[in-house]
């Protein structure tokens, strides 16, 4: 949950920060596109 994720044009965030306090649908893809 503390894994740091890189977001284009934004500051990095931990996964916990991304999903906390929100119901979330998280989709892992093999590659973008």
């Amino acid at each position, binding site marked *: 949950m503390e894994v740091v*994720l890189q977001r284009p044009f934004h500051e*990095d965030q931990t996964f916990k920060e991304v999903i906390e306090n*929100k*119901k979330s649908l*998280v989709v892992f893809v*093999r*590659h973008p596109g």
Partner: protein
Amino acid sequence: MRERYEELTSTGYQIVIITPSTGAYLEQFVQAFGPYPYSVYGDPKRELYSSMGHLTMQKWKLLAKAGKGLLKGGTKAFIPEDPEQKRLVQKAMKTHDIYIQGGTWLFDEEGNILWNHIDTMPEDHASIDTILIEMKKH
């Protein structure tokens, strides 16, 4: 996903996409293919993938599937015609771990897992209809 964004978010869920990419690559990608209505994040070391059980598939299995797709649809099945999009997709195929398993997860506000589906093969995605059914259950 992009086409059914409103239907999905009308359930009260935010949509988060995780890719095995760097933020710098994603910046180029979003400029070429975007904009996207949802947030896209990069996990280039695939730490989140592995901590949640998404494994790298056996290469021969994936290549066999890719070969079938190539026979069926030719390179158009994989490679866009737009030059910038084509360059980025080809770069991703060379630089990304395209053998990593994808998957779909639902979390509540506290970060508890409500439901998940880890793809066993590239075509083994949870369908949008299935995801919507699971979202409405929780």
